[in-house]
């Protein structure tokens, strides 16, 4: 097993798909490195949040995901 990455909203377009798998263990630096170009820039933006197994992290830099974890990258919600 690995870490499952879920891209929400327009991040899925930039990633070319809604999901990817990356090798565990995975920290924030490794995740940004695995996301090249525009996608890496986008997920690094202040307004993109991250959740691990359904819990949103206060600080993306604290990401620490292991085997079987699901990491979701959450761009700003759309509003009214």
């Amino acid at each position, binding site marked *: 097993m690995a870490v499952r990455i879920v891209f*929400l*909203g327009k991040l899925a*377009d930039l990633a070319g798909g809604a999901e990817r798998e990356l090798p565990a263990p995975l920290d924030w630096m490794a995740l940004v490195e695995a996301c090249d170009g525009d996608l890496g820039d986008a997920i690094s933006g202040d307004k993109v949040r991250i959740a691990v197994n*359904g819990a*949103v992290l206060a600080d993306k830099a604290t990401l620490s995901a292991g085997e079987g974890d699901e990491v979701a990258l959450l761009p700003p919600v*759309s*509003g009214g």
Partner: protein
Amino acid sequence: MKDVRLLDRAFDPNPLIDALAMACPAAGGLATFLGKVRMGEGVEALALSHYEPLTLPGMDTLADAALGRFDLEGLLIVHRTGLMHPGEPIVLVSAAARHRRDAIQAVDFAMDHLKSDSWFWKREKRVDGWHWIEPRAQDADDILRWS
């Protein structure tokens, strides 16, 4: 009574509202907001995506916040996901209360939070293709009304 639903297909609001009213006989007031895909603005379809582990739990937490903040007999929050066409309901909030102010304010509160603080991502299909909808500054202002 709390009824929170995330639906992936078209729904008829009236039976859901009527069921809330039936369940809350002591409520003299029932306030409702129904949001639909607008017609006649060049939008051919709307697609709402969500994230299962966050979206419904977030709606449920919002319902609890409204029930805690206002004196309600019951609250219904329904939100669509998936592909929708002009005229179709997207969101329904209905609050039953003894007094009208609580019912109306609870609906206003829930709508402001659903719009700007819930885990939905929206795309519109126009004649030139699909476009992601960005957050609006107005939404951030709306939610500050309640802090």
